[in-house]
């Protein structure tokens, strides 16, 4: 590829490209987490789900030759993890945060266990759509070659935002999250709604994992995700449980994650490891700035253990 020199403009452009590329897993995990949290339960295990989804997606794509089957497999395995979490949390006296930590370790362990043979081989990748044909600059073109999953994520975010407001199911989920007694009084099974919300949330997180291994960075390795699933949980709090805001927050996190590689692309390699910490620092500062002990957060589901 012949790079045209565009100097310092390369940094914001690379960050935009990175934001679009890096944000997709954040988007999917945070939408899944948003759904689960809206129903009044928190699933910290999505980190494990993300890693296992990345592994299973890559493995199935390699074995069948179809990346989309890989995405489906990742989603189904995510469902499976979500269902385990959802089922265990139904039992009395079980702490959803602790189960989340356990599922995080269990999911990562299983993914490393089954993923060993898939570290070397090259699996077919997801295709991308070029929206940068109008520009002559190769940087712009590469920045705007967008993965279809990103677009699916946007549609999903808008749909969830609409559905929470305007559909019967959205209302039931919000009611279970805000007041379990109210949902019980209306004759809905709180456990069942939360179980379904956690399972579907797991599906989204699994798909997010498949994006990691099948598009960007685009290979399965044991260091593929370091805390992205967990950052997505913090991101949902920052987005105030609003799926549309989740999308914006995911873009912001993606840009932060792209900062290190973007600076590297224009020759600033000093502090590469430091810029790698940017998303974590950003998450922490955003939480410091947006959370307050004095008032409860606007839009927070009333049953959520994390905000009590």
């Amino acid at each position, binding site marked *: 590829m012949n790079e045209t020199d565009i100097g310092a403009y390369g940094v914001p452009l690379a960050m935009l490209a990175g934001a679009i590329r890096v944000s997709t897993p954040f988007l999917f995990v945070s939408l899944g987490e948003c759904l689960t949290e809206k129903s009044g339960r928190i699933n*910290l295990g999505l980190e494990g789900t993300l890693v296992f989804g990345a592994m299973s997606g890559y493995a199935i794509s390699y074995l069948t030759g179809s990346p989309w089957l890989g995405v489906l497999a990742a989603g189904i395995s995510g469902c499976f993890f979500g269902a*385990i979490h959802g089922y*265990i949390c139904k*039992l*009395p*006296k*079980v*702490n959803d*945060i*602790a*189960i989340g*930590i*356990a*599922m995080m*370790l*269990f*999911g*990562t*362990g*299983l993914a*490393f*266990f089954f993923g*060993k043979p898939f570290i070397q081989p090259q699996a077919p990748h997801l295709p991308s759509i070029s929206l940068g044909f109008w520009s002559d600059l190769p940087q712009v073109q590469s920045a705007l070659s967008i993965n279809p999953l990103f677009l699916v994520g946007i549609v999903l975010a808008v749909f969830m935002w609409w559905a929470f407001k305007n559909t019967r199911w959205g209302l039931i989920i919000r009611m279970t999250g805000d007041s379990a007694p109210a949902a019980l009084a209306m004759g809905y099974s709180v456990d069942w709604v939360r179980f379904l919300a956690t399972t579907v949330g797991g599906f989204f997180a699994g798909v997010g994992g498949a994006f990691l291994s099948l598009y960007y960075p685009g290979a399965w390795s044991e260091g593929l995700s*370091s*805390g992205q699933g*967990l*950052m997505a*949980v*913090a991101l949902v*709090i920052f987005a105030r449980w609003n799926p549309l805001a989740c999308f914006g927050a995911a873009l912001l996190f993606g840009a932060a994650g792209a900062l290190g590689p973007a600076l590297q692309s224009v020759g600033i390699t*000093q*502090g*590469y*490891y*430091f810029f*790698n*910490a940017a998303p*974590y*620092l950003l*998450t*922490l500062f955003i*939480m*410091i700035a947006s*959370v*307050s*002990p*004095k008032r409860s957060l606007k839009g927070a589901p009333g049953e959520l253990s*994390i905000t009590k």
Partner: protein
Amino acid sequence: MADTVNQDAATPAVGVAFADAVERIRRSSEYVVIPLLALIAAGLLFSIFLLALGHSPITFFSLLWRGGFGTEFSWQNTLVRAAPLILTALCVAIPARLGLTIIGGEGALVLGGFSAAVIAIPLVTASAPNYIVLPIMLVVATGVGAFWIGLVGMLRHYRGINETIASLLMSYIAIAIMNFFVEGALRDPGNPNKPSTLPIGDANMIGNVPGLGVHWGLPAGIVVAVALWVLMNRTTFGFAARVTGGNVRAARAQGLPVGKLMVTACAIAGACAGLAGFFEVAAIQGKANASLAAGYGFTGILVAFLARQNPIAIVPVAIFLGGIAAAGGLIQRRMGMPDATVQVLQGLMFVVLLVSETLYGRFAFFRPRGDKR
């Protein structure tokens, strides 16, 4: 309970004391029996997992025994791994008494060990004797660890930030800080293969406990565990901490300094993890590098939950899990299974253990006499 004494009022005083003791053992045995049942269930589930993959569970568990506890060498290996596990488990267990779930022990261990190795560099170049170098390293490691997790406690109390998420994020930041310096400014030019800090030198290494083949981190961990048990169960601080863990509002209403308690407990926890980092550097690695982030912080979470956040119970549980980790290499070589096998077993144990929480209070055997639920 008072009602049990009333029931036995007719029997002589010695009989009452004896019956009381039996009663107490019977009731508290619930906290041993249920975790043991959970471990057995996890072992059975893991056997099914192995059978489904065409491996023999019998071979697996016999190798686990041999690699962890079968020989003198494997015992040494086990105890060397148990030492940091005791300390990182304490990093989870102490805040847990206040109702805080801290999972960032890995970060405090890494940063504590790293800063100990860094502070040693000028001292070693000035060829200071080891009785000066080691105490300074020790203080710096525990101090940095205490600051790191103490910060999580402060964020929790003053800003209302969830401590579980914050502590894990800070772990990643800690590892990034170490990598940044180890790959850059503080990299030892004499070690081209693996980026590390300058070695602290053989003269400054902590030796083994005579006749045991295990470094001093193990006795230190046991002493700290006992001391923290006393602190949490026999002092006003511990009582106040447990009240806060039971009910924050009640603690506030009583005028307990909830914020101070939280930050102090977190700082103590971080100091433990930092101490683990000190021993990893001063007794094993001799320098700071990526090997510090070996996952002791994460296994420590499982140790603390298995020990039901009891500092004394942490010691045997840490030895048990250290043994499982020690056997990992042998299992990998003999059975041709990936190194993550141990991680799967640990994860499964963790999940089953948490499921077993639901069993407490279900068995009539463990209930106080006269309680007919």
